[in-house]
């Protein structure tokens, strides 16, 4: 019989029938006494208190009172960015809610997956992707808050660093949440526009209302400043560090149009000298692991054993193992092909039609590659390899949240907005040079290559550098521009072709389940009819 380490549990089974405390001669005496003894034994034999503890779980009290376990909990907190507890793929959901509104992608057909509603700006109140993202973010914030509350401000440097990492994570999730569910900070007016729920404690019964956009950004700013201060220990780019907090602050200030602060923090990251741009000959860098990639400020590490295959980010964008249903848009292709030498074209994997001998078929009407291309339902097969083939493994990819190139382009945008056009172009050119561009392919104030505004140059460069990486939609809308979807295919494409920045369609509804569970929430305004706009 298995020894369970709990004496008494099986004692009963053998001891209850008879026990050596009964003398044999009892049998000769009164049967009633015998019975009473018998029954007493049955009752006293049972010593099991039925207090079993699970062996793969710890109580919250154990965690918050043990520094080692707080580290374990922090590891768990990082895991939310990889995958949530129900098995949904957190990073894929995040990518879908922040990227699919961009003009860099085209889906070959209507899909019954709720990603379609985001992709086509036909937001619905029961979008399960928006719900999953909301839930994962708040579950992660709760877990992070548990660790933050458990570390006092006079703890050791190591513990304070841990607290800083958790503060950064809270800021990161909040930053994503306000982006998906609230209007950009730059829109009128952040003081009254509704943001998201602020959760800075572990009160599980609180049902907070939505704070304003301004309150949310200030909350994030406060967390990031504190995080940068607390993180004094150097950690690899798979973990938060003060440089990660600075990079986040640079992005945050840019979004808040606090350009001087954006410049300050972007410069802090650059001058830390921890990161170097990937050399031009190593582009495309998707084959590098995050340990090998000198440009990565923060990436969510995915081990080969954790490869999510058809539920990974890359699955939609490439067909090797993946679904391969989303291709690169023609408007991005046109931008990429403005400079024939731009090595960022290497992130495109064109699928050629082959003849009977396996040879490509020349086609002068194909304006990018000059060969006949495969298509899927009329959408040309320009796949992207940005999210696959890490170390050569299909669909393996550790999503990069911050990389050095963004810092240069934050500088460029902030300089452009503060009228320092030369500095803006200098920073743009750093990125263009790495893209293999030289001479007249670089921008000068006297060679704007047809652009009339430096800000336009910066935003297009950011698109060239970061397409599909989750920046584009936010860059368009926070700069009060219109999303141009006129390239769209007609296969089930029922959404608007132009989406102005002021549209209610640029943000997601809070899921109706969550609305029912927290009566203090106010829903985002309903979708307006955009058919009056020139289509």
């Amino acid at each position, binding site marked *: 019989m298995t020894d369970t380490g709990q004496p008494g549990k099986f004692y009963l089974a053998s001891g209850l029938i008879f026990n050596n405390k009964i003398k044999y001669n009892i049998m000769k005496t009164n049967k009633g006494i015998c019975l009473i003894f*018998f029954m007493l034994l049955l009752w006293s034999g049972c010593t099991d208190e039925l207090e079993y503890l699970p062996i793969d779980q710890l109580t919250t009290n154990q*965690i918050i009172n043990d520094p080692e376990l707080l580290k374990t909990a922090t*590891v768990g907190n990082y895991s939310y960015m990889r995958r949530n507890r129900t098995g949904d793929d957190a990073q894929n959901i995040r990518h879908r809610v922040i990227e699919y509104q961009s003009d860099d992608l085209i889906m070959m057909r209507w899909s019954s997956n709720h990603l379609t509603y985001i992709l086509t700006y036909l937001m619905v109140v029961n979008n399960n992707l928006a719900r999953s993202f909301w839930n994962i973010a708040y579950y992660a914030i*709760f877990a992070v808050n548990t660790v933050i509350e458990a570390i006092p401000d006079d703890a050791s440097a190591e513990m304070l660093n841990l607290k800083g990492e958790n503060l950064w994570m809270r800021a990161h999730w909040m930053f994503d949440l306000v982006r998906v569910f609230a209007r950009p900070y730059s829109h009128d007016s952040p003081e009254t526009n509704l943001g998201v729920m602020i959760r800075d404690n572990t009160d599980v019964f609180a049902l907070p209302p939505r704070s304003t956009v301004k309150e949310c950004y200030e909350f994030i700013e406060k967390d990031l400043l504190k995080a940068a201060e607390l993180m004094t220990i150097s950690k690899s780019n798979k973990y938060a560090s003060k440089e990660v907090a600075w990079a986040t602050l640079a992005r945050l200030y840019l979004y808040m149009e606090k350009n001087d602060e954006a410049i300050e923090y972007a410069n802090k990251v650059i001058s830390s000298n921890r990161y170097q741009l990937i050399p031009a000959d190593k582009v495309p860098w998707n084959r590098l692991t995050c340990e090998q990639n000198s440009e990565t400020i923060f990436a969510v590490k995915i081990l080969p054993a954790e*490869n999510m295959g058809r539920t990974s980010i890359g699955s939609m964008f490439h067909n090797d*193992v993946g679904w391969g249903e989303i291709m690169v848009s023609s408007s991005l292709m046109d931008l990429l092909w403005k400079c024939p030498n731009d090595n960022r074209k290497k992130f495109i994997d064109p699928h050629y039609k082959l003849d009977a001998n396996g040879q490509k078929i020349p086609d002068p009407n194909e304006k990018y590659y000059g060969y006949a291309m495969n298509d899927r339902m009329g959408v040309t097969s320009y796949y992207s390899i940005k999210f696959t083939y890490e170390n050569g493994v299909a669909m393996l990819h550790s999503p990069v949240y911050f990389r050095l190139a963004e810092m240069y382009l934050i500088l460029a945008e902030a300089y452009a907005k503060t009228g320092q056009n030369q500095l803006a172009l200098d920073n743009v050119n750093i990125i263009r040079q790495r893209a293999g561009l030289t001479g007249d392919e670089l921008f000068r104030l006297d060679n704007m290559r047809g652009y009339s505004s430096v800000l336009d140059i910066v935003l297009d460069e950011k698109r060239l550098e970061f397409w599909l990486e989750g920046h584009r939609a936010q860059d368009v809308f926070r700069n009060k521009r219109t999303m141009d979807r006129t390239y769209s295919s007609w296969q089930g*494409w029922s959404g608007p072709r132009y989406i102005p920045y002021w549209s209610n369609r640029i943000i997601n509804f809070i899921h109706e389940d969550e609305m029912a569970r927290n009566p203090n929430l106010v829903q985002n305004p309903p979708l307006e009819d955009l058919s009056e706009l020139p289509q």
Partner: protein
Amino acid sequence: MESHIRLFRKFILIGIFLLSQFVALAQQVSVQGVVTDAKTGAVLAGVNVAVSGTTLGTITDGSGTYSLTVPNEKSVLQFSFIGYQPQSVTIGSQKVINIALAEELAVLDEIVVIGYSSRRQSELSSSVAVVSAAKLQTAPVSTSLSVMLQGRVPGLIISNTNGMPGSGATMTIRGAGSIGASTSPLVVVDGIIGGDYNPQDVETVTVLKDAAATGIYGSRAANGVLVITTKQGRAGDFRVSVTSTTGPTFNWDNRIELNDSHSLYDQQVKGLRNLFDLRVAEGHPDFVGKSFEEYRDKTVPPNVVNTNTNWYDLLNGPGFINQTQLAMSGGNERTTFYVSANLNYEKGTILDRSHTQATLRSNISHKIFENLKFTLRLTGDYETDPNSWFGSGRARWESFSAVPYDNPYYDGPGSINGHLTPVMNTNIVPLWYHYTRQNYILERETSESLSKEYDGTGTGELDWRITDWLRVNTNTRVSFGFGDESYMFTKDNLEGKTYGGYVEWDYDYSTGIITSNTAHISRKFGNHTFYGILGQEYSYGNSRYVDARAIGVVAGMTALSSAGTPNLTRGTLSETGFKSYFGQLDYNYRNKYFLVGSLRRDASSRFGPDYKWATFYSIGANWHINRENFLADVDWINTLKLRASYGKTGNANISNYLHMGTYQFSDRTAYDGVAGAVPSRLPNPALTWESAHTLNIGTELRIYNRLTIELDLYNTKNTDLLQSVPLSAASGFASQQRNIGSVLNRGIDLNITTTNLDGLLKWQTNLNLNVNRNEVLELSNHADIISDNYIIREGLTLKYFYMREWKGVDPATGKPLWTRWEDENGGLLHGSSKKEPTNITTTSVFSDASLIPIETVYPDFTGGFSNDLMFKNFSLTILTNFAVGHKVYTEANWTVHDLGSNRFKITKWQGWTTWEKPGDIADLPQLLFSDPYNTRMASSLYLHDASYLKIQSVRLGYTFPKTIVGLKNLSLAVASENLAILTKFPFGDSDTDFTGSSAGSASLDRYRPTRKVLFSIRFDL
């Protein structure tokens, strides 16, 4: 071990002690005789012959004879035999006493096993129902007892939802008391909670329904109790029995019409055309000035119709079933045994699924002394399911969602020996239309999976009759279960491709012990009779699993060690325990007035320290009116009983550890190869037992020995309902297990049995009916609990549809319409606001429509109707069952929103119409590719009336009157199951779960119970 040796020594000593008593008896009258059946004259073996007032006795042998030495001539011999009326004879001067026993009218006063004890039916104060082995013999063939009981027992509501080989049905007794904790009744096998049994070994099933019957099971009896007794050998009656049933099985999906390539293409083109015209009319620049043909051909090229794969036929086909049992039983006056071996094999009606089960049972009883009986029961069970990874529904699902344009073999249609189509490689196959982009045929041929299960139990029971009024009994079962599942996916398999193929082995094992120890007192003082039970019970169980995966499979090798890299290892242990003390006292006066009371105190490890223990009780009374003097002359009333009971029972059928707040480790919570933990559960230290408070008033009437009516009225209030409550994400958790409030089930159980003809042609009819009303009485803070498409709200039933209300199709536009509630400012109101709408209107915008409580999930009434006819040696049994008034949510992808999953012909059986032009009054909106108006989202459009009457089984049997070629009791039967169903439900069999946790929804592609044509043979050697 030492304790076992001690135990053995003790037996010896008790034995010696008891033997000394027998020796004291000195005596000298011999008597012998033959016992026969009074009607047929056949000799009866195994008849119990006892000397009244002593412990002496014997049994008749194979030729019906007995011989016995009795104390003196005043001794009284008592002859008793199951199924016969007992007789007593005073010996006097007789040396030979031949006895003819008359058959007992079984229905009148059966011995009913009610768990810890047994009673004559006439003595019961409680609502119980008994199903005998004879009835089970004519039941549908299944490895699951629940399937065999469907429609047989009033108040036992069984929905048979799954046709997967080896699967069972869901059982609920008298309405859903809970949807958060299991509603399955407690199962008691041979007097002890839990245990394995093969339905073929079952002698009787007793269903305990009211508190007077279930009270003694206290904590675990809130959902009722199923008491199962397995067969036992009879002394002197050695027999070898063979039973075999075999036959083909079929799907019966003829109510579902699937498109072939041509009709699918036509349907899709229609949807595309409508969208195209709509967009052109709107002036959408993507469409204006372009040709519809170009749009159509880009989306669905006309050549798709060149492939016409019938996936349904590819993945479905006739199955086969065989159940064979070999049983041997017999014994002498001291030792009896029953041994059986069962082999069940079922080939599913979907590709590659089958189930093989082999079980063994050995029941051995030995009287160590006349008053000390030891019984050992052993069971073994082995089950195996190949291709288990594909689950019960995968091939069914593919049958309905795979697209006829896709060919699983790319060398061309019909080329079964061709290459498999690797659908993800778009260089080989430019298009694959099935939206999952999976080729089921490829998947199965590039993977292997096998599930095996081994279970065993050993039960030892010692029953010591200390005096004629005192008996103690100890009954202990140890059990183990071992599950072994293995998977292999090659690198050509979608599942395996990411990892270069992988091998995974899962093992789980569980062990358990339960011990039940009781003392029974039975005393009579004049007209007063008492029975008492005092007992204690303890159980402990644990389960542990290990799961390992390695990646990089070489050449289809299937050993874990043959894969290259370790990938995943996980495993954990879970424990659970119960501890109980209980007592029961029965009293009757002149066999006319009966009272019963029980008290039980239970602890469960599933609750926190302060909430572990709970007390349960019951009290019942029974009045045999027909035994009163004023009815003494009324001989046409055979039985008239009135009974009432009240009691409290409990339910702890939830997962372990739910009261604790914990951080959990798993493979998902690690990061960068370092173990991590995340908060997994919000603590609820106050979590406690769910309780059922049941009042039952019942009557039994039997008249003219032909008509029996049993009527029970019950009122059950379940309090502290266990429910997982969904939480706002602000809490950090998805849900919390709570005791949420109370629900009322009240209803009527009616059981009418009539003997319509009793001559050469015998005809017996049984109708049983349950009418149940369910209402949520109170919820904590009166707060609704809303999740998915259901709401829990005070005043509604526990499960109630909550979704958008479908208001048909706008005749002018062809758009869908849903109800919209508005407040005084025109703002949108949902039902959750509990505000009365100022204005009720309709909208075609899904997000602008209101979520409102629609209607209940539960049926108005359920029941069964059976007819048994006998003519000479022929018998005919017709079983039907029905459920009326419930709705099922079944979503079909009506619209052409997705080119991959719109396989259903929407107008064939259902007769639905789609909107074509302004003015049309249609059932469904205009067909529009991409479903721009979100018709497919949840609404009451997808609620279907699932009322049904089903001919569940028709069975014709013939029993040979005499021995044929050495085969005794030879009988043959032919039966058909699931013969027909009468229902308005549009998608075939509507026999779905309608009271259990999944009540209210049924997927279109579920694996329905199959139609079977069965031949069976049964004989004794």
